[in-house]
């Protein structure tokens, strides 16, 4: 295949694969079957398109091809015979079938698939994997790499999740308006957890996994197209863009951590910040704010400040106050304390942190120990700071974070022995 055709085909697949799969799942109610015939249709395209050219409506071509394969397979396979009858009966019950539209564009059923992959009846750890697999179109080894688990383990998890969807009959559908407020946060949570795994890997040699962060942003853009009126979808996209805009400045030349205070803001992605800021306005307009919108607004304040000193800290603290009401959690309280330290000085921040010391969730959370250590050293209490850095070091997950904490520990120890 010549390179241009190959590139065109690949671009089409990337955009169409999720839509194709969602349409097939919608039609046949079986994720395995849908995946198989989607792959077969893509194989057929790989064979035909380079010779005959990419069709005018590649998505519709793929869907028609895949549907034919699926029907052939269902006819051949005795085990599926009963299911055809059942599907037909259910389709009749559900109302008149959609008119066949071979020339029309591929209908976008991806929203149902998002809700299925993020269904609360599935184990939390499988939801992200399934979303990457079905909606981002990653192959199982790529999903395994994303979560740093062996390929057979990930394959088993995906098989198990698909089995539960099929056997417990988790429906492929978009929740109605009355259920949406309850179910949408789960979908957003899945996308955000994919992003955070990319933004700050929980383990492993690297701090950031940019491909994963970008995949999450792509998924959020799809969601936003499908649910344009949902402001939290916009808020999540804004938040991820504003955070991702700092990616190049977050690590040093040696791969080490560079904290917000020390980042070269000239290396922030201005276009991405601008896009994020505009989305924040939409996310916070026309109703009460949601947690993602508020977090995005905080990220936007950092994004527009020239440096740490000129950041609008009173506003940041005020937004954390709102966030603490929307999603009360020790981690939010920790971040709020750090912002208070910037507004009112390290002693005020430390007092708030000490109030949080008994929170079980923070005891094993290294950013808590690191934040205490930082405030203690800013107060000149270096021996206590060193102890807190040691604690943080014991808890930190990735090597770059440990290296950073080691260097801070050394300078705290040095200052302690000087004093």
């Amino acid at each position, binding site marked *: 295949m010549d390179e241009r055709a190959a590139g065109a085909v690949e671009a089409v697949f990337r955009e169409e694969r999720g839509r194709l799969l969602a349409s097939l799942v919608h039609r046949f109610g079986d994720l395995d079957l849908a995946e198989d015939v989607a792959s077969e249709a893509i194989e057929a395209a790989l064979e035909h398109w380079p010779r005959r050219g990419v069709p005018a409506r590649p998505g519709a071509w793929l869907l028609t091809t895949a549907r034919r394969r699926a029907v052939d397979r269902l006819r051949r396979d005795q085990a599926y015979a009963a299911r055809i009858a059942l599907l037909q009966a*259910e389709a009749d019950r559900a109302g008149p079938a959609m008119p066949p539209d071979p020339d029309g564009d591929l209908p976008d059923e991806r929203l149902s698939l998002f809700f299925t992959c993020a269904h609360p*009846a599935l184990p939390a750890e499988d939801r992200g994997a399934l979303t990457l697999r079905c909606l981002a179109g990653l192959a199982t080894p790529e999903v395994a790499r994303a979560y740093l688990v062996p390929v057979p383990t990930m394959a088993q998890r995906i098989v198990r999740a698909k089995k539960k969807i099929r*056997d*417990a*009959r*988790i*429906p492929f559908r978009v929740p109605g308006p009355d259920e949406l407020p309850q179910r949408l946060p789960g979908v957003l949570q899945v996308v955000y957890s994919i992003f955070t795994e990319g933004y700050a890997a929980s383990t492993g040699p690297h701090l950031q996994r940019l491909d994963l962060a970008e995949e999450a942003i792509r998924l959020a853009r799809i969601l936003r197209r499908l649910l344009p009126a949902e402001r939290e979808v916009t808020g999540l996209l804004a938040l991820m863009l504003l955070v991702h805009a700092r990616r190049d400045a977050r690590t040093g030349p040696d791969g080490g951590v560079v904290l917000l205070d020390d980042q070269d803001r000239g290396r922030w992605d201005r276009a991405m910040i601008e896009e994020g800021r505009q989305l924040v306005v939409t996310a916070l307009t026309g109703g009460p704010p949601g947690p993602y919108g508020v977090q995005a607004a905080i990220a936007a304040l950092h994004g527009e400040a020239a440096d740490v000193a000129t950041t609008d800290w009173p506003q940041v603290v005020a937004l954390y106050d709102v966030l603490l009401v929307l999603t009360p959690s020790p981690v939010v309280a920790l971040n709020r304390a750090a912002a208070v330290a910037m507004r009112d000085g390290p002693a005020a921040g430390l007092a708030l942190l000490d109030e949080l010391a008994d929170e079980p969730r923070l005891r094993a959370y290294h950013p808590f120990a690191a934040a205490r250590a930082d405030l203690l050293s800013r107060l000149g209490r270096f021996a206590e700071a060193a102890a807190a850095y040691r604690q943080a070091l014991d808890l930190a997950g990735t090597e770059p974070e440990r290296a950073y904490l080691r260097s801070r520990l050394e300078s705290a120890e040095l200052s302690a022995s000087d004093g």
Partner: protein
Amino acid sequence: MKYMLLIHPAPDADPNDFGCTPADWMAFDKAVHEAGIFASGESLQDLVTATTVRVSQTGERTITDGPFAETRELLGGYYVIDVPDLDVALDWAARCPGSRGGGGVEVRPVADYPQG
């Protein structure tokens, strides 16, 4: 598709603080029947009445007092309902008074083996 709703009341729940009354159970039972989804269902006697039988490979019977699972969760009763999908089954489970007051309702699809 049939789903079994296994009703697990909270182990040490105060009956007065249960969040539901016999009237709630009667209302739920009525709703399940009126919706035309009822396949079967029973309320079980108190846990102390449970007896478990195990049969070894050699055919030896062991009879012990109490429920099989070594768990604090008890099985208070069950419904089998026939509904289109898991979401509908979960909606009914959530309406079941047994899901309140610290209890829970486990939803299990009933295996559908081909006949003959």
